[in-house]
């Protein structure tokens, strides 16, 4: 997934001006490029100087609340001695370890924060394990050596990006900036075995949802990926013309 111009993304990356998949791609680029790692660390350091102009005193009550929450929060143990810049693996792990305070899970690939936020709407307790598992899967796909990046524009607006890995037999779909699907309508994801066989549902977004980071399983041997607009809850087979079709 390393493209020749990915190096140019360093500035945008340091400013957090990339999407989740680009972030993951760039993280992998950094893994192969020690010089870039230092360069980006300098951009980051520079970018954070911009925050100095935004000093603002928080409400007084916040101090007590933060100290109380900290007192009730277990700390991560030291991760062992490190010298210099971390290895890519360490960086992934560290990102993974930076879990959110609610203890659900972390910002592995930032992709997973979306996953968590969706999950939080459900009963938190029961979804913790599932969310963690899903986040791990998403990370595994993004980090797979054979991960391949595809993208396309939806008819009617919006962008879809798909990362698929044959070795993981799974993919990560990011839908962004899509228009509202209308009442009781939902975006549904499809995998297409080949031209002669009907598409297989790869998941339905909650009704009305216009952006998502979705894990799809069973991508191996699939010829294409598609998105269509369906009644809420999804359809067994596509009932409308696909908004986008992407060859895998």
């Amino acid at each position, binding site marked *: 997934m390393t493209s020749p111009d990915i190096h140019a993304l360093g500035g945008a990356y340091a400013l957090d*001006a990339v999407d989740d998949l680009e972030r993951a791609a760039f993280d992998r680029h950094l893994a192969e490029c020690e010089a870039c790692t230092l360069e980006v660390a300098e951009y980051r350091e520079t970018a954070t100087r911009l925050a100095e102009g935004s000093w603002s005193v928080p409400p007084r009550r916040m101090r007590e609340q933060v100290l109380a929450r900290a007192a009730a929060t277990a*700390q991560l143990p030291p991760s062992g001695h490190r010298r210099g810049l971390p290895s890519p693996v360490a960086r992934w792990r560290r990102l993974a370890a930076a879990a959110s305070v609610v203890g659900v899970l972390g*910002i592995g690939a930032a992709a997973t924060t979306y996953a968590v936020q969706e999950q939080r709407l459900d009963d938190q307790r029961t979804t913790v394990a599932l969310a963690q598992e899903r986040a791990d899967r998403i990370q595994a796909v993004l980090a797979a050596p054979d991960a391949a990046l595809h993208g396309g524009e939806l008819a009617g607006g919006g962008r879809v990006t798909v990362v698929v890995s044959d070795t993981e037999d799974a993919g990560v779909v990011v839908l962004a*900036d899509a228009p509202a699907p209308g009442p009781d309508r939902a975006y549904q994801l499809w995998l297409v075995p080949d031209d002669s066989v009907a598409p297989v549902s790869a998941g339905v977004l909650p009704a009305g949802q216009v952006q998502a980071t979705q894990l799809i399983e069973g991508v191996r041997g699939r010829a294409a990926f598609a998105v269509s607009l369906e009644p809420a809850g999804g359809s067994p087979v596509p009932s409308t013309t696909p908004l986008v079709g992407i060859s895998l």
Partner: protein
Amino acid sequence: MTDPDLGPRRPEAAPAVVRPERVEIDDLLRAVARGDDSAFARLYDLLAPRVFGLARRVMRDPAQAEEMAQEVLVEVWRTASRFDSQRGSGLSWVLTIAHRRTVDRVRSEQASADRMQKVAAASVHVPYDEVADQVGTRLERQQVRHCLDGLTELQRQAITLAYYGGHTYREVATLLDAALPTVKTRMRDGLIRLRDCLSVEVTS
């Protein structure tokens, strides 16, 4: 960190001007990593206005910014052992967490169209909060402003729309009606110019 750093403070070699507050933040983070809650209380006082200010600037809603700042600060407590001074300053480590989380939250909660409408507001000068100010912070601001003024218009807009507005470079390209590769490049060379102007260094 399991290093000998746990002992007395290392002699501060190098940069001619060391900002004492930054050094203090690094030391406090190391103490917090050992579970020192009074160090965390002191760290809170140094970091809270910065983290809250950044979240507020990007999110615009004080209540949301407060929740975000709380989350980030507790996260700092939780993950302090992961701070590695070899990779950059503690302040930068904290603000990187704060910025990334804030931006992620904004993007997941707001439809893009919605954010686009806020651009007018985001791209004009935002008045600084009239709050307890410190001489050091004021000087820092002046320096940052001075260095931002040294950028080309496109560099400056690309960087501030991304950093303060939380926009992706794609959105920035749309907003500025510029080509994607141009925006990527301007972000990068703008940061390089800022880095040199601010004398930012990361020792590895």
